[in-house]
């Protein structure tokens, strides 16, 4: 699996690819605000921007993904969010980053982007609920936990599958480019 990653990338290549993914993540956050929520659960999101985070882990590095996550949350809150939503986004974003980083540090061989995406969505929701419990000083917010977890499985699988398809396409393009260079 590691062989499929884009290795030996120059720092300029890393920087420009992370920036491209940040742009894609912001576009996905914006797009998401137009899509009516399929489920009436407070705090529920499609999590499309998570696609960019996992692709960044897969193709670039955990450090780049950390920058991507921090910048994506701050910029999208400034552009499309409200100050009240910042703490929920930060808590969810931190929890999902940590979970994805743990998977990439140890379990990536056994779990694909699909499982990582589901775990990341579940972590995002739990982080968000923990922030809500603190802000509201009420544990009643956890009444929504089961529904958010079920939603994580469904929508995490969808975004995870998109990640797999994108990563596969990028790897194939990269291989074609390399063999092309060798021929020349």
């Amino acid at each position, binding site marked *: 699996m590691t062989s499929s990653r884009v290795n030996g990338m120059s720092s300029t290549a890393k920087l420009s690819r992370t920036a491209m993914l940040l742009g894609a993540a912001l576009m996905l956050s914006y797009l998401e605000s137009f899509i009516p*929520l399929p489920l009436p659960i407070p705090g529920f999101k499609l999590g499309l921007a998570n696609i960019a985070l996992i692709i960044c882990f897969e193709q670039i590095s955990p450090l780049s993904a950390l920058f991507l996550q921090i910048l994506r949350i701050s910029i999208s809150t400034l552009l499309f969010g409200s100050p009240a939503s910042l703490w*929920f986004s930060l808590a969810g974003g931190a929890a999902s980053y940590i979970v994805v980083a743990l998977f990439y540090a140890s379990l990536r061989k056994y779990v694909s982007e699909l499982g990582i995406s589901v775990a990341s969505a579940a972590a995002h929701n739990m982080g968000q609920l923990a922030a809500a419990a603190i802000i509201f000083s009420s544990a009643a*917010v956890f009444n929504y936990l089961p529904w958010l977890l*079920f939603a994580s499985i469904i929508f995490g699988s969808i975004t995870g599958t998109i990640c797999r398809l994108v990563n596969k396409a990028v790897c194939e393009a990269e291989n074609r480019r390399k063999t092309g260079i060798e021929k020349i």
Partner: protein
Amino acid sequence: MRKIKPLGGDYIVIAVTALAAVLSLLLTFPRGSGSEVTVNSPGGVSVYNLFADAEFEVEGTDGIVMTVVIKDGSVFAAESGCPDRLCVKTGKISRPGETIICLPAHIIITVGGENEGGEHDFVAG
């Protein structure tokens, strides 16, 4: 070429998440009969009788105002100035453990009563 077939660990992650969802559903499933309504807003916590019909306004963050109606032993958000209006879409709640949350306004409405879990103590305390 990479295949996009799921790996074994994917099924484990999904199974663990599903198990956590089912367990938390069993723990928080609404049961029993409600007797009171707790409204938690940035202005503080107030408790109402679930069986005394009432209509009042609750002020949340960012100047959002929510109209809460208590009628025939259930409570619902009739109107709200928040952007997503999920609190209004949640509809009527009447059993202990059921909750209406308005994230943008930081308002949370819970039903309390018999057979409830530890949640109510947390709210009141």
